[in-house]
């Protein structure tokens, strides 16, 4: 393995390598080799998830994780979606999908909206202390959520929202504010001030400028915020398990019950199918909106 890399920096003697073109070809080859290595590392786990989910249990126990399934079967997927037993109820993950959606969608929309307004206020209507407010928003975020469970429970109880979907949405919105505010603030800093000054001279107000000038400029950062928030809230387990009840429990709770059971035989194929099913909405979102995601970044969304 080490020989070719050693030879690379000084290729002077071997004639064909001295020409500029072959040097360029060599560089490209090394580049694509490195990229292939990177792709292998990141894609490998997904391959294993998928291939194992199409195997039978005996095949998994005999063959390890890496081989392709001999006789691919979708049984594990059927089981994970509709039949797997969680406690005494055998309905798979399907009953929890709607719960996750009902919780995630409003929480994402509201927190992104609030973050956009906050970011706009901080970046474009600065006031004395705006920088301190921003720093405080980001810094407070480092509190580990495990320790706020008790006060959150008591607060939700006081508000009469404990165990309800509304309560979960509220919590996700609140703890999403710092991140969305940070994203939007950093993006809006790069929107030229002249645009806003001109509008203000014409007598336009805070919200008029926001909706008519700033928002239309920022579909990309909105997508970034939507994706990050959707991923975070969809994947959350701690708040979900603590503040939901059996009828409002989202997917992560069911997945944990399925995959994390300590006692009993581990059905890896079902677990892996369930894992992919639970992650599917976020994966699809990345594939559909991935282009915008990068564009959002490029537009300066998170350039600090």
């Amino acid at each position: 393995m080490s020989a070719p890399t050693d030879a690379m920096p000084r290729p002077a003697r071997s004639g064909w390598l001295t020409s500029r073109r072959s040097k360029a070809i060599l560089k490209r080859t090394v580049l694509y080799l490195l990229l292939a290595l990177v792709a292998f590392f990141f894609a490998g786990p997904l391959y294993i998830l998928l291939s194992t989910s199409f195997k039978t249990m005996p095949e998994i126990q005999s063959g390890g994780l890496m081989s392709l399934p001999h006789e691919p079967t979708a049984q594990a997927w059927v089981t994970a979606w509709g039949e797997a037993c969680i406690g005494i109820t055998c309905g798979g993950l399907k009953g929890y999908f709607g719960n996750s959606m009902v919780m995630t969608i409003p929480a994402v929309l509201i927190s992104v909206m609030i973050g956009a307004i906050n970011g706009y206020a901080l970046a474009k209507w600065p006031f004395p202390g705006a920088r301190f407010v921003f720093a405080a928003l980001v810094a407070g975020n480092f509190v580990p959520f495990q320790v706020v469970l008790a006060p959150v429970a008591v607060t939700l109880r006081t508000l009469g929202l404990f165990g309800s979907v509304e309560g979960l949405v509220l919590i996700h919105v609140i703890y999403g504010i710092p991140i969305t505010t940070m994203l939007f603030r950093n993006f809006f800093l790069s929107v030229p001030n002249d645009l806003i000054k001109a509008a203000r001279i014409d007598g336009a107000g805070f919200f008029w400028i926001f909706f008519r000038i700033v928002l239309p400029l920022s579909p990309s950062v909105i997508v970034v915020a939507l994706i990050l928030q959707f991923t975070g809230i969809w994947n959350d387990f701690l708040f979900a398990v603590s503040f939901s009840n059996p009828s409002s429990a989202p997917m992560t709770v069911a997945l944990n019950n399925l995959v994390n059971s300590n006692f009993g035989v581990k059905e890896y194929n079902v677990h892996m199918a369930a894992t992919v099913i639970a992650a599917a909405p976020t994966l699809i979102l990345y594939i559909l909106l991935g282009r915008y995601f990068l564009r959002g970044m490029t537009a300066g969304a998170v350039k600090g």
Partner: protein
Amino acid sequence: MLTKLGVLGSAMAFALTTTTPVFAGTAEVIHWWTTGGEAAALKILVEAYEKTGNTWKDNPVAGGEAARMVARTRILGGDPPTSMQWQVGAPLMALAEEGQLNDIDAAAKDWDKLLPKVIADNAKFEGKYVTAPMSIHGHNWLWGNQAVLDDVGIAMPKTWDELIASADKIRAKGYIPLALGGQSWQEIFVFESILIDVGGRDFLTKVTYDLDDAALRSPEMLKAFQTFAKVRDLVDPGSPSRDWNITGGMLISGKAAYMIMGDWLKGEFVAANKVPGKDIACEVFPAGGKTLVFGTDAFAMTAVKDPAAREAQLALATTIMDPVVQKEFSLRKGSIPPRLDVDKTGFDACAQIAMGEAAEGHLFLVPDNVTDATGIGALVDQMTTFLHSNMTPEEGMTAMADAVAATR
């Protein structure tokens, strides 16, 4: 319809006559029984319960800690479940002292006579029952793959010295002497059995209940650490962090000769068509220690006020203590019934041994349920740290005693 009730008929009759539910209530129950064998056992309870006219609302949360976290958060949020799986003893008292539990004495008139004293004492707060014990599991069991033992030509050891002495013979035949899943909750079973081995039940009490500083620094403790250090060589390199059921597979498939694990391991034998007590030999270890460390599956009753929910709790308590439910439940879970008077037919040889130990008063409640959780936790942390390090027994003993002392 009546024929369908089958063995559960008496459960229903019992429940109907004692509690006479005026209101048909709903019991929402948090538990961590999410896997196949556990769910099969739970179904016995649920079916019997629903025949009392009440409804069971299932709320499974995988993992004991996660389930307890949810239960506690629910209580803080003012929305407690009707009942929840909760250990007896100290953890239960912590809840009761906060006024978070209802007593169920109305359903527990004769429980003092039916339960072993150690369970009855730890299920009561200020003299009143606040939890209903469903089943008990023994922890310090030594299991031996009979085919491997026969091949090596040895019998089940009675003491740790014998076990360690047999290791070379086992290794010579190409087997792993001890299958161990290197997670602290599994390792503590090994450590506890060593404590019994070096100093008997009294020593185990002094160390794990009293966290007695003198005992923690005694010659017996040093001996225990010397034995425990040898465990490092009894296990295979894949041991650290391994799940218990994968580890159990090594015993069942004959890769390893011994394993020390709670009796829920029997569920794995049955799944692999092995008979406990025959294909897999069992022994409360060390033999003659007169100590079976055990944990309880019990359902604590939260401080709900609604009369219908109160009735639902009483009906649940009655159902849990029904002798037929207790028997059928334990047969499926691999546990034994806490009630001493349950019919013993149908239980495997190992369960028979356990029931014998219980009848003779050899039960020893798991230290987690007795001792200050921070103190015993520090002990467990140092126990597992020692096993996964190169510390000498002297160093291990001092580190444990110091860590425990710091929690006082």
